[in-house]
């Protein structure tokens, strides 16, 4: 089967994810950890991130709407979000978390709310793009995936 077209799609998608700032070098680090003994590692870690971060987003939203707001707790929740985001190379997410943290420190509730909406959008966009990316990779199959030449 001719994978060259598929490979081109994958390469170009990955490039655009990097160029548009969705992902950074850390994502490459993850891909380098994937091998025969752990052929779906990247997809698995990313899935764990989205599961974890969805929960955190819900908690952050709830914490924002609870009066009086516990900014200490909010900061802690966003810190967790930011940390696991940076572990998968989700740089836009990470940056938006930093904005949220800054608003938190200033006890700027409106700023936090706006930032949360951005975080949710970034989260949804990244999730969708990565799902597409992994779908393409799955079509290529593990043997092809492991080939580094076309990264």
């Amino acid at each position, binding site marked *: 089967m001719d994978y060259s077209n598929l490979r081109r799609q994958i390469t170009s998608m990955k490039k655009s994810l990097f160029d548009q700032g969705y992902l950074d070098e850390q994502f490459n680090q993850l891909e380098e*950890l994937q091998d025969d003994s*752990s052929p779906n590692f990247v997809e*698995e870690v990313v899935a764990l991130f989205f*599961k974890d971060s969805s929960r955190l987003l819900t908690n952050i939203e709830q914490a924002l709407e609870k009066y009086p707001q516990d900014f200490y707790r909010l900061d802690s929740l966003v810190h*967790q979000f930011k940390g*696991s985001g940076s*572990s998968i190379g989700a740089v836009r997410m990470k940056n938006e978390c930093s904005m949220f943290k800054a608003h938190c420190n200033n006890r700027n509730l409106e700023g936090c709310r706006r930032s949360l909406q951005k975080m949710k959008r970034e989260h949804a966009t990244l999730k969708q793009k990565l799902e597409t990316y992994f779908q393409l990779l799955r079509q290529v199959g593990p043997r092809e995936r492991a080939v580094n030449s076309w990264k």
Partner: protein
Amino acid sequence: MALATETPFHVLAVDDSLPDRKLIERLLKTSSFHVTTVDSGSKALQFLGIHDEDTCPVSVQADQLEVAVNLIITDYCMPGMTGYDLLKKIKESSSLRDIPVVIMSSENIPSRINRCLEEGADEFFLKPVRLSDMSKLKPHILKSRCKEHQHHHQEQHQQSDSNSNGSSNPTNNSSSSSSDNSNSRKRKAEDNEETSPQKNRSRHS
């Protein structure tokens, strides 16, 4: 008496974040470590066999000793017990204080880093941790093993000095356990593991 062991070094990784746990586990396994992951400092202490007061009798610790931990790597920011709190508990424990501890943090705060190093952490990694960071772990394990060998040799010399006529000392193990540190306890467990299969063989052959 060299205890040749082919088993990989065992690292206990502590992190409350699930994706981060998966990542550190993969990093460690890729670097040929045997890994156990836990999601909190208190679970780490449970695994290591210590409670609030370090009063565990050896029999209770036996399970933990069969899976001796060669290094502990822990996240700094965790709810409840932080990585720093865990580090302190480990260093306060006579049975665990020689195990090298590495702290990971997503924040580059010099005062935090210094505080951890002063408390006895062997290394501080900035997250996200990379594969290249893994190569820094083995030297710390080997260094602590060197200390272990030195202690063991010192104890052996002391015993032979105290023995009259150089007669064999069947109570070798009990005298080393009186010094009450992890090194001798670990050695004891390894001795037990070495001798018991041999005993079985002689019975059934």
